[in-house]
């Protein structure tokens, strides 16, 4: 794959290749050694590589956290706002996500963070996180599906777990 395609489709791998080359260059003696601020240049290129993925991760985390709050506090008026935001976050995430991110996005970590975020908010107002599994019940493909409705799935899940008890 040439650099143009790689940059467009998988900027993180692109950045890794550039960082490799920069490191090799930094280790080679030459007149340039003192001109380049290696540490900061490397850091900038690394963060350029991961910033798109981080944006997607944070959108997914916020969408799931909102969904957990809606399920945990179904009767409040806040849910109307949260529902709108869930749809918006997921729409933005779908727009930004790229197939190359699949192997780099850690769904479990997103789920953990979403649960923490939701339970912090709910507990501050004397409500509790709904009974949901420790492991993320959604797959990468679920999250990308335009018909994905985390609310429906989470409600079903919470109901199933309650009836089993």
């Amino acid at each position, binding site marked *: 794959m040439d650099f143009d395609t790689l940059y467009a489709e998988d900027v993180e791998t692109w950045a890794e290749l550039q960082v490799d080359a920069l490191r090799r260059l930094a280790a080679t003696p030459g007149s*340039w050694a003192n001109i380049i*601020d290696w540490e900061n240049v490397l850091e*900038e*290129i690394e963060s350029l590589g991961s910033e798109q993925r981080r944006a997607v991760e944070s959108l997914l985390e916020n969408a799931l956290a909102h969904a957990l709050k809606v399920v945990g506090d179904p009767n409040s008026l806040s849910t109307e706002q949260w529902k709108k935001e869930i749809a918006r976050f997921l729409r933005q995430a779908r727009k930004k996500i790229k197939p190359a991110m699949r192997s780099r996005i850690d769904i479990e970590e997103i789920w953990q963070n979403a649960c923490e975020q939701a339970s912090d908010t709910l507990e501050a107002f004397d409500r509790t996180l709904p009974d949901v599994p420790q492991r993320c019940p959604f797959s990468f493909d679920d999250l990308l599906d335009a018909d994905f409705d985390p609310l429906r799935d989470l409600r079903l899940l919470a109901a199933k777990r309650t009836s089993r008890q």
Partner: protein
Amino acid sequence: MKSLYDTDILRWSEEQAAALRMLADADSIPSADWDRVASAIEDVGRSALAHVEDGLRAMLVQAIAGYCDPDSLLRHERNRRARSGQNEAERDLTPTIRGRLDLDRLWREAFDQAMTEIPRRVFGVPPGIPRTCPFTLDELLADDFTYDRAVERLYILLTSWRPKAEKDRER
């Protein structure tokens, strides 16, 4: 030792980008997307400049909108926007960025934006709005410069209106 990266990001990014482009032409350089790496480094400085411009423009938009529509219920909101614009401008301001700012251009852009923000009930735009920015950069960045101050300054600069305290002094 503090690097130029911490003290003058725009100059840092331009110097680093130039050095990387020079390197790219040298022999026995590992193969990489050097031109794009250089541009990415250049963008770091450009976006710092853009942040400062965005902040200052936001302040000017609020001042112009407040001058055209002084009784607006948005006063508190405009005050907040102007304050956050000032914070944004201060955060990334460095000597090199200072030298690149074109306040008159930002003023004209702010005017266009303010015209889209003032409500329709405001009939027409008041006369006398100058083509060049009536504020200096230092004035905009001063700690005690607020939205209310900005609007008042515009009245003093552009009309014969004076605050009461000043009139009393003149008497």
